[in-house]
């Protein structure tokens, strides 16, 4: 399972296979500025500092341009980590812990 690090916030979480960065952070009790969760609105972009991601759905060029991709912009609702990754939140956004319980038990699952 790839590891996701948000160094500036001292956060490190394990991502499940096929789980997007957004899903992984929310499953671990974090929240940040997100919109449609479906790759259309672009406000959940973060900066990819290290590691590799792939997009699990087609992403419109109007949402994420080639130059943005090349420059390390990552659309977190569609990005699935291929390797361990390190990201940074955008300047006008923040990562908030909304549930310590979810953080505590993120690794456990039912079913």
């Amino acid at each position: 399972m790839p590891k996701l690090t948000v160094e500036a916030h001292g956060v490190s979480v394990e991502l499940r296979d096929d789980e997007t960065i957004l899903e992984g952070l929310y499953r671990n009790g974090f929240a940040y500025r997100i919109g449609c969760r479906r790759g259309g609105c672009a406000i959940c972009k973060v900066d990819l500092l290290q590691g590799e991601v792939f997009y699990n759905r087609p992403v419109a060029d109007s949402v994420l341009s080639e130059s943005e991709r090349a420059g390390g912009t990552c659309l977190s609702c569609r990005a699935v980590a291929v390797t361990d990754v390190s990201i940074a939140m955008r300047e006008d956004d923040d990562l908030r812990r909304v549930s310590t319980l979810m953080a505590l038990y993120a690794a456990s699952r039912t079913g």
Partner: protein
Amino acid sequence: MAVMRMGYMHVRVTDLAEAKDHYANTVGLYQTLEQDGRVYYKGWDEWDHHSVVIEEGGVGYVKCGFKCEKPEDVADIETKAIAYGYPVERMVAGENPEVGDGIRVTLPTGHQIEFYSQMTAWGLEVGTHNPDAFPRHMVGIGAPRLDHALLWVDDVAGIEKFFMECTGMWATERVQTSLDDDAHTIATWLTIGESNHDIALLEAPENKIHHFAFEMRGWSDILHAADIFAMDDTPIDIGPTRHGITRGTTIYFFDPAGNRNETFSGGYRCFRDRPTVVWTPDQLGKAIFYHQRELNDRFLTVAT
């Protein structure tokens, strides 16, 4: 009355298979045609061939169409739109499958709006002879019909004036900078008939579509729709809740490409002599989300 209703909304989707699943199985529309990479749908309480068109590739607005009562009404809008100074072109029958002759007006924002008076009849799902109240086997939320759309535009007052002068619409509600006569219009809700809005306009830095909405049959159906969205993992922007503006009950949700949809119900009857309701920016939270009374991160910031 020249224009009768918003007849169709045409949007782009990134993944056609996922979008088809959403509009057919979650929204519960009926597919009437698939042709040239586009899929056409109607709601159960609509009689024309289609009201929603999805097209693969990208995301966001392609165009919408308003249905007029008679060809003369389309001709009248053509004359007025040309005089108003917006580019107008004719469209011929078949250019949009099952849609007759009409005109296409391009707003200064680039949004294309079509006006037509004929579309192939398909029929109500309950028929017209001794009909039942709703189809016995509805799918998903069973959206009965397309209701309205909200466009992001950079010049609300100018485009509002076009709709008022050229199509006969009028504003039921507005958000404006103050209660003064010379206030700047931030948003407007325009109606053709007696519903709260057929099209709404919101000031924004980009020219996009904020959402398009389906009319539901009351609060209990809105609540039921929210349950279906939970079952189908459909992302909800907000709701179920009520709007201050229009008093309508609502859920905003997203299709699999991130286009915002709405289920809308209620509001009040809008006779043409009804005074326009005015909201000021300090009350915007309550105006939009009457119960929460505050905006969330995305409602006024994202569109496709």
